């Protein structure tokens, strides 16, 4: 059983703190994706699990055993690196088998195991080649095979797909997911690509500036982001964010240009009058064609341009001085500067504290998903 417990982990480089007390548990067999912008501490965290970085404070346990002072080789982890880190002077077979060679596995057995692993990733024909003679996707597979052959308790992935072109990335994503379904090994995957994260993860850990912003299943994180940061980071496009003011009776919001929207005050027990940030998903908005504008149940916006997606369009508009993106299924030949009437349902309105950026929780939604630091 390889459960990973991360408890109050911190990391300092000299006086700079890059990880600020991170706490979470990865269950045995779970596929966890750590997502965040570059410099958020996600790779550092992964490398602390691997044993490539000293842990400055707190503990990391793998399978119930504290590993803080253990060397990488004693932790039972295998890692796939961003640039693959294949040994350029060794053949594919030697690359895959190097860990076994160091461990003193006899060469006959080594060869057998290398062949077996190479077969599962489709590399049998390339065993004698050097990494320099392989394509990006093939190198990626060698890196995977090198990790797999050790039959590790834990797989660690450090942005392994970021050097591949878009099409190959999608394909490798599927292969990694399949692999996980078959091996059921605990996996930690670090990426800055939210699509990759959403599609791969059993559970997402979103980090920013060395703290965890939110932990949860991809759908929960998407539906109920715990903070403005997560809201902007998850989804393509991210949540539309508009500054607004809650009226003194907490029954409505006023935007910067004076437009008003009705809210359901009973949903927000902790809502106070004053400034908030209003979040709206592009998919939750609807452009009303014809018919009358419903004051206080909708927004008036100005059309900028439409972005073609193939399956529909992203309508880019402006409301109260802020950009607003609306997802539509059909095609809309609006002219630049045209006025748009947009329906907004009170149920789709998400509110965030304008100072802390944290979500103002609703009564009708389970709150367990948010676990802000």
């Amino acid at each position, binding site marked *: 059983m390889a459960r990973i417990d991360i408890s109050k982990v911190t990391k300092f480089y000299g006086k700079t703190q890059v990880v600020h007390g991170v706490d979470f548990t990865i269950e045995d067999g779970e596929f966890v994706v750590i997502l965040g912008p570059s410099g958020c501490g996600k790779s550092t965290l992964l490398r602390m699990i691997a044993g490539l970085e000293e842990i400055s404070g707190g503990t990391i346990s793998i399978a119930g055993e504290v590993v803080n002072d253990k060397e*990488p080789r004693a932790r039972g*982890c295998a890692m796939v690196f961003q*640039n693959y*880190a294949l*040994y350029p002077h060794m053949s594919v077979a030697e690359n895959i088998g*190097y*860990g076994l060679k160091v461990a003193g596995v006899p060469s006959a057995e080594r060869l057998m195991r290398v062949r077996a692993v190479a077969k599962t990733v489709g590399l049998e024909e390339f065993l004698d080649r050097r990494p320099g003679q392989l394509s990006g996707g093939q190198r990626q597979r060698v890196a995977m095979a090198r990790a797999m052959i050790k039959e590790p308790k834990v797989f660690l992935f450090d942005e392994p797909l970021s050097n591949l072109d878009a099409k190959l990335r999608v394909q490798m994503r599927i292969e990694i997911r399949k692999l996980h379904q078959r091996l059921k090994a605990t996996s930690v995957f670090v990426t800055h690509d939210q699509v990759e994260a959403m599609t791969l993860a059993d559970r997402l850990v979103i980090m920013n500036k060395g703290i965890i912003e939110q932990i949860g299943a991809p759908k929960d994180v998407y539906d109920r982001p715990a903070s403005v940061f997560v809201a902007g980071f998850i989804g393509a496009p991210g949540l539309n964010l508009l500054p607004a003011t809650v009226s003194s009776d907490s029954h409505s919001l006023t935007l910067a240009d004076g437009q008003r929207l009705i809210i359901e005050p009973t949903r927000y027990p902790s809502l106070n009058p004053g400034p908030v940030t209003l979040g709206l998903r592009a998919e939750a908005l609807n452009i009303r064609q014809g018919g009358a504008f419903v004051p206080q149940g909708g927004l008036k916006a100005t059309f900028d341009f439409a972005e073609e997606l193939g399956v529909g369009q992203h309508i880019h508009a402006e409301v109260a001085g802020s950009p607003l993106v609306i997802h539509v299924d059909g095609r809309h030949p609006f002219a630049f500067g045209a006025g748009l009437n947009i329906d907004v349902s009170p149920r789709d309105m998400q509110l965030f504290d304008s100072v802390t950026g944290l979500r103002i929780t609703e009564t009708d939604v389970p709150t367990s998903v948010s676990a802000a630091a």
Partner: protein
Amino acid sequence: MVERTPILNILTHLILIMGLIMLLVPLWIVFVASTHDFRTVNTVPMPLWPGNQMVANYTLAWQQSGFGPKMLNSFIVAIGVTAGKIAIAAISAYSIVYFNYRFRSLFFWLIFVTLMLPLEVRIVPTYAVAANVLRPYQELLDATGISTILGALAGIKITLPEWSMLNSYTGLILPLIATATGTFLYRQFYLTVPDELAEAAKMDGAGPLRFFWDVLLPLSKTNMAALGTIMFVYSWNQYLWPLLIITDIANYGTAVMQLQRIVPGPLFGEPPRWHIAMAGTLMVMTPPLLVVIFMQRWFVRGLVSTDK
């Protein structure tokens, strides 16, 4: 690029051919002179085409100077110095780049600054050290008072044995092995090796020595060839140092040292046997010349990337 410059092209070739003449004619004259007999070589002007005395001249030059053992000595020294320089550069740079300890920058600079202390400017005291290698340590022990303290405590007077490197291969090789250039070159190379390679090796369970031996050394083959080529040329061509520390020429003389003894002319009151002298010169210069010709690619890379 489409560019028609026929006159300039001819001029270019003319200049380049003149360059070739300038750089290679001295070598040609040495060769031509080494193939004529005593009388022909001393005619003025001398012929520009080889004669037929080549075998005789070379045999004589070889035997007279005892080039057999001298060439062998030169090879031993050149290979010893080259191998030593590569080994010591590879491990010192490894220590400096891949280990984290407080004095590593200081150590790097201590090694690097020796560039400013070529043999020629410290020649007399270096000779004195070679005559008794452990003397610096003896004086250190005395000066720091360690030997006095030990003498008082244990009643033993510490006297390091005298170890002279004069007239020995050790003396020809060891003082030349320290290498700022090589250490710098290897350090530069290590810095270009991706960090992930060391991490991957760590994940594969390899320790520092294993990583060095299995990954870094094989990867540095190009580097090694480059460094090896320039260092072979450098050590084969050593002249002043062997001249100083070798007095037992019969046993430890090197080929280049021998050049001093084959200078003909009034200096030694002999007839100017230039044909023999030139045959000897050519033999002495051939091994490094061959190395440069065969290793050209590495040699150029080594030179240019070290910035000396």
